């Protein structure tokens, strides 16, 4: 879909959680591409399945979560057919991941140096001394002041922003081709968030990586991503190049999200909230999942979930409005 060759292609991925009350389809047929060397943003509200999708890529799901279908092609090789041992060689080496909570994502009982050098020792068979030397270089690369001292400190001695830098150093130690960042700045203050985002962008260029940023924050997507996938209730509802998407959202949910944000450039007495609530994952509505909250919904929307339809070369939308049989208006209101 995109002009650049993809490094990662997800095709019809399905991940479910099997609980006593039944099957919760957290990711229900997600298809997306990550263009090589670019940043893909996956946006959506809590419970839309974006984090589960991210964990599925590295197969880091915990019980009772299970990938039940689809393909995850990394450089055209299906990761879902790899053995656990082969996956281990990929994790932290070819594909790395950083998480939302820098405060709890580092092991409290080991030093920073120990934790970073572990990556080198397991993936590059490096000796302890060399691995520490490399770790020191990584700390320098991610802009941690007095890295020699930090190397021997424990996580509690570092601030949240510093810990997230350490997480990034750890993730990028083996120069992965793809970095999956799951809400990397959500737990951080705005000024620190800005630092971390700059750092990720900067390192992306330096190390020629591709990045997936999972976030609920549209502002972060606008500032950092080349391409965007919008998720709602386990589905991708819209996928487009960032500029186009923010210029003109096509799916009513995307437009609704944008409209409900307080804006800097316009004064509004009332925000245009999306009505209702996200449905519970065990009681998914019939038809299009967004239909109960959608002001454009017609009969067909309530009966059948539309497919993700390619509109032009670079954009795909999962909405009946863009089908041939649609009688109503094809304009989705957006006050951008």
């Amino acid at each position, binding site marked *: 879909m995109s002009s650049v060759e993809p490094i990662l292609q997800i095709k019809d991925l399905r991940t479910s959680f099997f609980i006593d009350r039944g099957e919760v389809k957290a990711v229900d047929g997600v298809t997306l591409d990550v263009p090589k060397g670019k940043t893909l943003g996956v946006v959506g509200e809590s419970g839309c399945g974006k984090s589960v999708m991210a964990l599925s890529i*590295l197969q*880091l799901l*915990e019980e009772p979560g299970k990938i039940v279908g689809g393909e995850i092609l990394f450089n055209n090789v299906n990761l879902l057919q790899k053995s656990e041992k082969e996956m*281990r*060689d*990929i*994790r*932290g*080496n070819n594909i*790395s*991941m950083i*998480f939302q*909570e820098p405060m*709890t*994502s*580092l*092991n*409290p*009982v*080991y030093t920073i140096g120990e934790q970073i050098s*572990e*990556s080198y020792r*397991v*993936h590059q068979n490096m000796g302890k001394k060399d691995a520490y030397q490399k770790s020191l270089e990584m700390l320098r690369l991610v802009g941690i002041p007095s890295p020699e001292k930090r190397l021997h400190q*424990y996580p*509690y001695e570092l601030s949240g922003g510093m810990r997230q830098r350490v*997480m990034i150093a*750890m*993730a990028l130690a083996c120069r992965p081709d793809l970095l999956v960042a799951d809400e990397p700045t959500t737990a951080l203050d705005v000024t620190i968030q800005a630092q971390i985002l700059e750092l990720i962008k900067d390192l992306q260029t330096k190390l020629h990586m591709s990045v997936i940023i999972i976030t609920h924050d549209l502002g972060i997507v606008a500032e950092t991503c080349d391409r965007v996938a919008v998720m709602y209730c386990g589905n991708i509802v819209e996928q487009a190049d960032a500029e186009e998407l923010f210029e003109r959202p096509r799916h009513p949910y995307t437009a609704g999200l944008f409209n409900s944000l307080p804006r800097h450039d316009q004064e509004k007495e009332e925000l245009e909230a999306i009505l209702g609530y996200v449905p519970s994952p065990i009681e998914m509505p019939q038809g299009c999942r967004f239909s109960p909250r959608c002001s454009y919904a017609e009969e067909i929307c309530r009966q059948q979930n539309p497919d993700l339809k390619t509109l032009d070369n670079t954009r795909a939308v999962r909405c009946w409005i863009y089908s041939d049989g649609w009688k109503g208006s094809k304009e989705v209101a957006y006050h951008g």
Partner: protein
Amino acid sequence: MLQFIVRRFIQTIPVILGVTLLVFSLIHLIPGDPAQIMAGEAAPEATVEAMRERLGLNDPLHVQYGRYMSSLLQGDLGQSVRTSRPVMDEIQPRIMITIRLAIYSMILSIILGLVAGVVSAVRRYGLLDATLMLAALFGFSMPNFWLGLMLIKLVSIDLALLPPSGWGTWQQGILPIITLGTGGAAIIARMTRSSMLDVINQDYIRTARAKGLKERVVIYKHGLKNALIPVVTVVGIEMGMLLSGTVLVETVFAVNGMGRLAIDAIRARDFPVVQGIVLIFALIFVGVNLLVDISYRYLNKRIELN
């Protein structure tokens, strides 16, 4: 760290002083006249008076305590009433037996408990987990002496595999150590399991997996060290239970240790010996807890913050 150890060491001084005060008071806290009790109920007044004089019971309390403390500092725990030998000489040949018994049992408890706890946590809600936890429940519900007697009956009498009593050869050691260590193993297993379950759900475990580490490394390197932190505290408390457990176990297996000496001394109303044993048990307990605190600190770097 060194500063912490020194400070922690200094903090035990008041505790030890308190212990000596309690042990010293022991003789005065029992109802009735200690001299009369020790001399025997039928003893004539002159004998009782002589006993009183010998124990120094006629002096004011603070003088008695001062004398007690000064001889204590010289390593003198007084004289046994029963054998007239110094209490130290009574205790010395037996103390190592008891300490060995306790340490071996402790090691058994820790190894068994940790392994069972970790396996249970990793295979949580599986058959192995259920079996191990049922065994643990059984383990700490059983009284020591009953377990000891059952082992003697089964292993020594019915199967005739190991000697039923005594201490010295390794064969003689096995049954007492199992008897004494089982309860602790059960408690440590349950503690390790719940602590480990808590740890496996932590974010840093996910980070370790995302790094591409083997599951074994994730569990034992990243998980266990964190899970040990609360377990260490339990081990400290365990040690106290073990020491008191030796009294019963040594009696059941006819091991000539401090525990048995304590029972004999109590029976013979040999208070100086009882005092000596209580004091030594207390000192060991304080020492063990000091070690526990230090290792807790070693494991949990975060408490340096407070």
